[in-house]
């Protein structure tokens, strides 16, 4: 009889995978996962980016009786740039600092909403995002998704406090509008 070995990634591993996909390509951020604690450490070489990332990510994330610790650490002893004043930045300033230099990011744009509120659209690159996750519903065990959905999971308004920020995907050229530009 053939032995079948089933492996399924724990939800906190999936969470770490999403962090790696959204922030791990940024040359200013390195991500380390400790399976024993469990904890994930994001080392940030830019002081301004450290301030914003530390603001928008939670300190812990609970999955049933497992708590994942999330440490945001300024690399090379770089200290905070804004300190407590980081909360005074506008949402557009926050997302621009957060995703500056990140290849997943296309652009952001601030508009006045229908209720005279300020909306910030954060557009990510037009790309199918895939990462291995022991997903039994997928032929290769991957999760296939979009950057906009990962961003909503990780830094949606409930966890990050980034209210009136809409995560979306840049258009392809064949839709009739150029990529990387506000319509």
């Amino acid at each position, binding site marked *: 009889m053939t032995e*079948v070995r089933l492996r399924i990634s724990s939800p906190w591993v999936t969470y770490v995978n999403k962090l790696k996909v959204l922030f791990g390509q940024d040359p200013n951020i390195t991500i380390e996962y400790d399976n024993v604690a469990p904890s994930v450490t994001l080392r940030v070489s830019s002081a301004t980016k450290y301030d914003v990332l530390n603001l928008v990510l939670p300190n812990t994330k609970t999955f049933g009786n497992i708590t994942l610790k999330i440490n945001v650490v300024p690399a090379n002893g770089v200290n905070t740039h804004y300190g407590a004043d980081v909360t005074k930045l506008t949402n557009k300033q926050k997302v621009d600092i957060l995703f500056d230099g990140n290849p997943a990011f296309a652009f952001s*744009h601030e508009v006045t909403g229908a209720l005279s509120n300020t909306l910030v659209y954060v557009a990510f690159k037009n790309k*199918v995002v895939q990462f291995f996750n022991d997903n039994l519903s*997928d*032929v290769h065990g991957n999760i296939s*998704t979009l950057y*906009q959905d990962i961003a909503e999971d990780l830094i949606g308004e409930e966890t990050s406090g980034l209210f009136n920020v*809409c995560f*979306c995907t840049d258009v392809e050229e064949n*839709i009739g509008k150029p990529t990387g530009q506000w319509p």
Partner: protein
Amino acid sequence: MQEVRLKVSPPWYTFFSSVKALLGNDPDVDVIYDDKTKLIKVLVEKSDKASALTTLLPKQVAFGNVILNIQVIPANGAFADLDDANEEEIFNTAFKGNPAYAYAKTTGGSIFVYPATYVVFKNRVVQYFNDNLNDLHGLRSTLYQDLASEVFEDAITSGRIDTVYFCTDIEENIGAPDGQWP
């Protein structure tokens, strides 16, 4: 005071857009929507493809008190007999020539392992206009696998097809070629 006009697509129109994004690029298929009768007509050149799509598509979808009807119409008026076709054959027939589709693969099927069919779509971001206020162009951005889960949900829940997983083909840079079972 400045007048602001808000437009939002109703959910049945979103459903039509999903069907069109999934099937409308097939040269054998035309997807037409009539808002007055709330009817989606799926016009199909081939009778076997029409039969496969009849198996997969719902006849009606309810959105509150609005009923959306879906009608598959073969060009020659005749449906082929697909009664003995398995899930892999049904999807291969329904999506033959459709640029959204990569391949289908059935695993298991022994006395120990229940068969499961993976239906794999092309690695591509799907976008269509949907008056989406969360998007800067009003678009909905999604994947073919998610559209298929929505559009074919009734076929799965009603048991017309069994144990089917919709997924997305990998890119070459992940380490395995496109369009192949690993």
